[in-house]
């Protein structure tokens, strides 16, 4: 367990290494007004050869290694990032889930048109829009998703109300 979670530092390292990524999941919802909390940063990455090299470098800076039930210390490298679909990682800044797809198999290219760029800590960060986060939660349909949906739908309704005013 790191001394403290640094969501901002995870984003900073990814941006500094020119990784093409979209923030999804809890942090994406928080950035758009969700009051729910999370302990990890979830991102979907572009699976081009160049981007995977950038991502591998960024994850190296974050001292990432796989969350392994057997407790082994295995680091994500370009080969693994190019093959496996889900990478649940521990880093010096906390948990980071690095994903090739979310929801109904939606990849970076499918999600980029459903995302928006937000300024976070003077960084330009691409974030999955709230309506699509809701769709991914509806698709996952686990008990924790159903609970989160109560809040996410209300956040969306509040944003729409503010935009209409």
């Amino acid at each position: 367990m790191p001394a403290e979670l640094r969501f901002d530092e995870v984003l900073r390292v990814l941006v500094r290494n020119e990784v093409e990524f979209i923030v999804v999941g809890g942090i994406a919802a928080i950035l758009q007004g969700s009051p729910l909390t999370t302990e990890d940063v979830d991102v979907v990455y572009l699976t081009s050869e160049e981007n995977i090299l950038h991502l591998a470098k960024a994850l190296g800076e974050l001292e990432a290694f796989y969350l392994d039930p057997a407790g082994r210390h295995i680091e994500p490298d370009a080969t693994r990032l190019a093959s496996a679909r889900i990478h649940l990682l521990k880093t010096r800044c906390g948990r980071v889930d690095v994903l090739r797809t979310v929801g109904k198999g939606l990849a970076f290219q499918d999600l980029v048109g459903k995302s928006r760029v937000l300024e976070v800590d003077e960084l330009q960060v691409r974030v999955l829009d709230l309506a699509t986060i809701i769709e991914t939660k509806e698709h996952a349909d686990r008990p924790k998703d159903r609970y989160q949906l109560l809040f996410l739908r209300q956040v969306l309704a509040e944003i729409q109300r503010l935009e209409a005013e």
Partner: protein
Amino acid sequence: MAWVPLDLWYDFLMAWQDDEVTDPEIAGIPTDYPQLAVSETGLDWGDVSQIRDKLKLTPTERLKAAQDFMNAVLRIRAQNAR
């Protein structure tokens, strides 16, 4: 300790009215469970006001608030584990 079924406890809370209390200084503030109107999405007034407060912040401020909150939780967890 007496065991109270959760649904009975909730019914008790919902039936508990303090409408007879009239304090003009807190007029308009929900002070009883029936006054916490449930939103269309199933949340109560407290939850909705929390969301409205978050929406007043910038994305940077929202991220920092979430990060600070989780770090406080982790510190308390670590202290309790000692």
